[in-house]
């Protein structure tokens, strides 16, 4: 009998809650369970999110920021290094060019000095030869001139002998020709 009354109580109660045109949300017999469960769920979710998952998410975000900042710093450093190297290379090139120019100038100077020396030597030899030749010519002319005198005296002696019939002495010839 007790169970029967219990059953009737339940059956009369249930429609009273569900019907009546009221909001189902205002069936207060369901509130306690929802509130307790929600608090429990919220606490667990809060613990899991704040202790485990959110630090991972923010960690990834921070890591990305740090990586980007680091990469930019690296790139800037490399750029600076490259600039320094480029500057060094430019000075090296300039040095090498200067050196090359100096070497070329030296070589040119040496070559011209050598050739000048050689020319001078050659000229000296030529001048010597020229002087010798001139001396030879002079000697030949002198000799020729003396021959001319002898030929003249001979010719004069012969002419005198033909004309007078008697030979003129050497002294007479010499005095006549002088």
């Amino acid at each position, binding site marked *: 009998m007790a169970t029967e009354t219990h059953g009737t109580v339940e059956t009369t109660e249930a429609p009273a809650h569900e019907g009546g045109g009221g909001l189902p*949300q205002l069936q207060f017999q*369901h509130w306690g*369970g*929802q*509130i307790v469960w929600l608090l429990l769920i919220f606490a667990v*979710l809060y613990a899991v*999110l704040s202790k485990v998952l*959110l630090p991972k998410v923010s960690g990834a975000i921070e890591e990305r920021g740090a990586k980007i900042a680091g990469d930019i710093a690296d790139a800037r450093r490399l750029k600076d290094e490259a600039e320094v190297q480029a500057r060094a290379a430019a000075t090296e090139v300039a040095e090498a060019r200067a050196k090359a120019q100096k070497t070329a100038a030296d070589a040119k100077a040496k070559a011209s000095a050598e050739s000048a020396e050689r020319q001078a030597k050659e000229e000296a030899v030529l001048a010597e030869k020229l002087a010798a030749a001139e001396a030879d010519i002079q000697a030949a002319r002198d000799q020729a001139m003396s021959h001319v005198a002898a030929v003249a005296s001979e010719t004069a002696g012969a002419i005198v002998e033909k004309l007078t019939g008697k030979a003129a002495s050497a002294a007479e010839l010499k005095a006549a020709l002088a």
Partner: protein
Amino acid sequence: MADPMHQFQVTKIVELPTVTVLGLPIDLSITNSVAAMLLAATLVIVFYTLASAKQAVVPGRLQTVGEMLYGLVDGLAESIIGHEGKKFLPFVFTLFALVLFMNLQGMFLVFTATSQLAVTLTLGMLVILTVVAVGFAKNGIKFFKLFAPSGVPGWILPLVVLIEIVSFLVRPLTLALRLFGNMVGGHVVLKIFAGFVIALGGLGVLGWAGAALALTSVVALTALEFMVAFLQAFVFAVLACVYLNDVVHLDSH
């Protein structure tokens, strides 16, 4: 037409014992509402476990969405509370994520936990009790300065204090009712318009035109409800931040 309120009916899925606390019987049975909350929390955990699994420098789709939601709440806490906002970020984020997932779940499954006043009121009370706890922990007895703004002439102060106290006390109610009302309203309207499609579709050719119109409305409203689902979670998080900021920066109040 089907009863548009039937979708809010709480039913038991797994019977669990009723415990009595302070003379109040609390039925711990797993109802569809509790199941929806459990599922939402589980999905939040699963989603963020997957989203934060790789911690890739170049994030994939899931990680991008996870970081976007996190960045959204982080930006809120930072811009509203200031640099102390980081401390409250997990709390605000848990609220936001849970409300968002419960709202969105209602768009896909049959039951919306946030359309239960018991749920939204609990969340509202949770926010305001946290605010009170933080307020007392940070300011001690000076917490009551919250109700007496500086720079108010003496003769008007009692009135202002009264208004401030009332406005503080209705905060959990407004938090709860805003979310509750939006979710219930949206789902009821969706149900009614969907009901029109069936009812008008049975009335012949003329009815089909009406049914097509109703169907178009349902599609449009569904899109709107997705936005509302996100927006209400966002508003809940914003207001939680605003209320927390009140007690964190009580001196400048």
